[in-house]
């Protein structure tokens, strides 16, 4: 059986529980067994700003907690996947690993180096597979035009992900969207960053980045953006509303998580199972189209 430690991260459980809800539903459906480890904390990605060492120790402690249960990690957040995978790369260096373990021992933890970290989309892509997903589709999503958005840390640094994706020409989310029957739409700003990691320091930078993507998508008759990271989600949905208020724009583009799109395709209840009623921009038109 496919068993993973579920790494929730910081933002999904506290700000975007609908992503967690839909992910748990989809994993249960495909018999991906998720184990909750309540001692998991922040992955450390933002803490490297002030201390590279603190960020590494935080990542390593989470890795050690999963190892202790002999589980690999499944993340919902692209940035957590990136930060933990980067830490694994760094900890391959023996002196770094020894130094980190010296600190971890003080809290009865040890990082051995056996744990693997993958994002939920990658687990769906690699372990369930496109063909199996296609077979499970029960609703017709062929009328949906979706703009995939990958999230930087799902793709980069490439070295941390063992060449799973080609950062400048990614394909897995396109294939996963296609598997549901929806049409992944090509657009120029596909690889444009959401800016989420700079939001605490400068909201204006984020508004500029978000607006560029929304402008690009405006004339492409898109029903929804489909993404796989809650930070990207908050930038494109909540910030979309703020941009409308601040600059008098009229953007109204629903943003879905991939497990929600997949759930819709394979027969989940849009509210009870997927939490689509909790989105900032309600995807009512999409639900009406497919149900």
């Amino acid at each position: 059986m496919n068993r993973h430690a579920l790494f929730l991260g910081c933002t999904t459980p506290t700000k975007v529980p609908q992503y967690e809800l839909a992910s748990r539903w989809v994993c249960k459906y495909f018999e991906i067994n998720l184990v909750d480890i309540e001692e998991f904390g922040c992955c450390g990605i933002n803490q490297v700003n002030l201390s590279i060492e603190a960020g590494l120790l935080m990542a390593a402690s989470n890795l050690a907690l999963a190892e202790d249960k002999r589980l690999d990690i499944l993340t919902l957040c692209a940035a957590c996947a990136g930060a933990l995978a980067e830490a694994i790369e760094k900890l391959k260096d023996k002196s770094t690993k020894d130094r980190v373990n010296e600190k971890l021992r003080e809290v009865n933890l040890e990082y051995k180096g056996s744990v693997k970290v993958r994002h939920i989309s990658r687990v769906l892509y690699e372990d369930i597979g496109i063909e199996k997903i296609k077979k499970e589709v029960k609703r017709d999503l062929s009328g949906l035009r979706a703009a995939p958005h990958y999230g930087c840390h799902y793709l980069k640094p490439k070295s941390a992900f063992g060449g799973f994706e080609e950062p400048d020409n990614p394909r897995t989310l396109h294939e996963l969207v296609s598997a549901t029957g929806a049409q992944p739409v090509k657009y120029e700003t596909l690889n444009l960053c959401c800016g989420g990691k700079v939001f605490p320091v400068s909201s204006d930078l984020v508004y500029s980045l978000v607006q560029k993507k929304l402008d690009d998508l405006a004339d492409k008759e898109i029903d929804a953006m489909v993404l796989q990271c809650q930070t990207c989600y908050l930038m494109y949905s909540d910030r979309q509303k703020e941009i409308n208020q601040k600059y008098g724009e009229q953007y109204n583009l629903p943003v879905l998580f991939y497990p929600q799109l997949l759930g819709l395709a394979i027969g989940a209840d849009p509210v009870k199972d997927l939490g689509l009623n909790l989105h900032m921009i309600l995807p009512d038109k999409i639900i009406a189209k497919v149900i």
Partner: protein
Amino acid sequence: MNKIQKTTEIKQSAYFPELTPNFKSEVLTHPDARGLNACFSCGTCSAGCPIHEVFPEYNPKKLAKMVRLGMRKRVLSSPYIWYCATCHNCEQRCPQNVKFFNILNVLKNTAAKEGYAPTAWVEQIRQVIKTGIVFSTEDNWVKKREELSLPSLKEEHPKLKKIIESTCIDKIKPRADSV
């Protein structure tokens, strides 16, 4: 020989009063900054940087050059070093395999120690020490978890707290002219 040295000194004080010639060596002592010497200033990092595109003052190529020139104070006190969105395009595309993202983190760590850290990041550390994550567990959305039958969140993370405090990162003070 003496004459040459003297000329250099005069030049430095006249034109570059704030240079710290050994700044590059100081940065290079951190293993994460390895590769800075390989940079040949082609500008691929800046060309692919989404932040540079919307805010030209944030310029990875320029920052790398400023470090090599020894412009220590200008670099560390600059609010722009905190503007990286961490997209990793710069290191992904660098023909010399320079990991600018990592070099920038070394610069930010040094700047933080000298009192230039943005309030947002300092506060985030304090929050992680309290709740183990970067947000409060009192948010309205957290209350919603019960309605959704999602497991409750652990409110304290003593191990993580101890680990973080061992690095003294919690002693960092935010910059006075807060970004």
